[in-house]
């Protein structure tokens, strides 16, 4: 009885909130600011690592467009996924499930910002980077959110391509071209994504199972997921070092990527071995937290090396790309 009253009170609050309209903070939350930060950061790394310098004003404009494009994709994702977000612990407090922002407002907000970000990037910087940004938003919303997420356990493997694009867009903004070098940065994030999200899914599998999202632990089981995490981590560790051999990273980067990659494998092995009780829960949570730190530090080292010339700059390339 008390539950029903509480539920009715929550519904009333949500309805009242919807009538009042969202506050500015609710619209900012629709942009997924934490994801946006990592997107801008990796985009900046791609831009700085590029062989041609971009004017600082144009660089800021490009990063602003990339940030807004990422936020717009996040808003459209929250609009489409509002039904499942409402039933998942991690996402129940998002603005749409809480009733702070209407579905129609969120979709309009996302579309306007998407078009604005792409047009501004094209007009202010170049149309190659704008086309890549448009493709990334379209892929994330149309392919990942609307199709893959609810239909296959490979959802985040393929969908990870969207999250891996910012360094390529940053590179294209600086050079008006795409070579194999930014594709290596793309591949690092692409291979990093599955262990990152599967580590999260391991300790949130109940949430995903309840709403019918076929994440790997729900469909293939935890043992298979832990094995897959380990395989991807073993590929990621050496892949993270590749920029040092193609003229993108220096000695400092090589050392940092080797240590960070080895630690990634250590966390993945622990996640693979600890399969029971609290220790398994803790191992997957630690892997998830470390994966965020790994990507941040890897790109931070690349950024610092290029921006400040630390470590003597990039090593001579073994392969020219």
């Amino acid at each position, binding site marked *: 009885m008390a539950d029903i009253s509480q539920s009715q009170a929550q519904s009333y609050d949500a309805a009242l909130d919807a009538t009042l309209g969202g*506050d*500015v903070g609710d619209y900012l939350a629709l942009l997924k600011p934490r994801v946006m930060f990592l997107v801008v950061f990796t985009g900046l790394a791609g831009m700085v690592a590029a062989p041609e310098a971009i004017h600082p004003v*144009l660089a800021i404009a490009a990063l602003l467009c990339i940030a807004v494009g990422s936020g717009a994709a996040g808003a459209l994702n929250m609009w489409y996924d509002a039904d499942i977000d409402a039933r998942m612990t991690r996402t129940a407090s998002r603005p749409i499930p809480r009733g702070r922002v209407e579905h129609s407002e969120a979709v309009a907000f996302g579309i306007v910002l998407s078009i604005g970000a792409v047009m501004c990037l094209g007009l202010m910087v170049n149309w190659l980077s704008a086309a890549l940004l448009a493709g990334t938003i379209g892929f994330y919303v149309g392919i990942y959110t609307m199709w893959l997420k609810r239909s296959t356990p490979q959802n985040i493997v393929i969908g990870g391509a969207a999250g891996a694009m910012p360094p390529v867009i940053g590179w294209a903004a600086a050079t008006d071209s795409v070579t194999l070098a930014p594709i290596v940065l793309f591949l690092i994030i692409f291979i990093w994504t599955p262990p990152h999200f599967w580590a999260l899914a391991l300790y949130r599998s109940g949430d995903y199972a309840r709403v019918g999202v076929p994440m790997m632990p729900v469909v293939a089981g935890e043992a298979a997921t832990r094995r897959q995490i380990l395989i991807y981590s073993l590929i990621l560790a050496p892949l993270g070092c590749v920029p040092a051999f193609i003229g993108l990273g220096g000695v400092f980067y090589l050392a940092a990527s080797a240590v960070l990659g080895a630690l990634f494998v250590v966390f993945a092995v622990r996640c693979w071995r600890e399969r029971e009780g609290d220790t398994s829960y803790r191992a997957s949570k630690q892997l998830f937290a470390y994966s965020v730190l790994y990507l941040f530090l890897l790109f931070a080292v690349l950024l610092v090396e290029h921006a400040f010339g630390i470590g003597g700059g990039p090593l001579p390339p073994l392969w020219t790309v």
Partner: protein
Amino acid sequence: MDDVDSDEFKRRRRRRSVAIAWALAALVVLFFIVTLVRLGGNVADRTF
């Protein structure tokens, strides 16, 4: 009293309007500076 007449509704609407105004003003400044940067050298070096 309707919700749309409430102080909270007006406060939120005002904050949204102010945020949009700031965003538009920032865009105007950004377009102006980007135009200067993109035109800069070309205008200075133009031939008559």
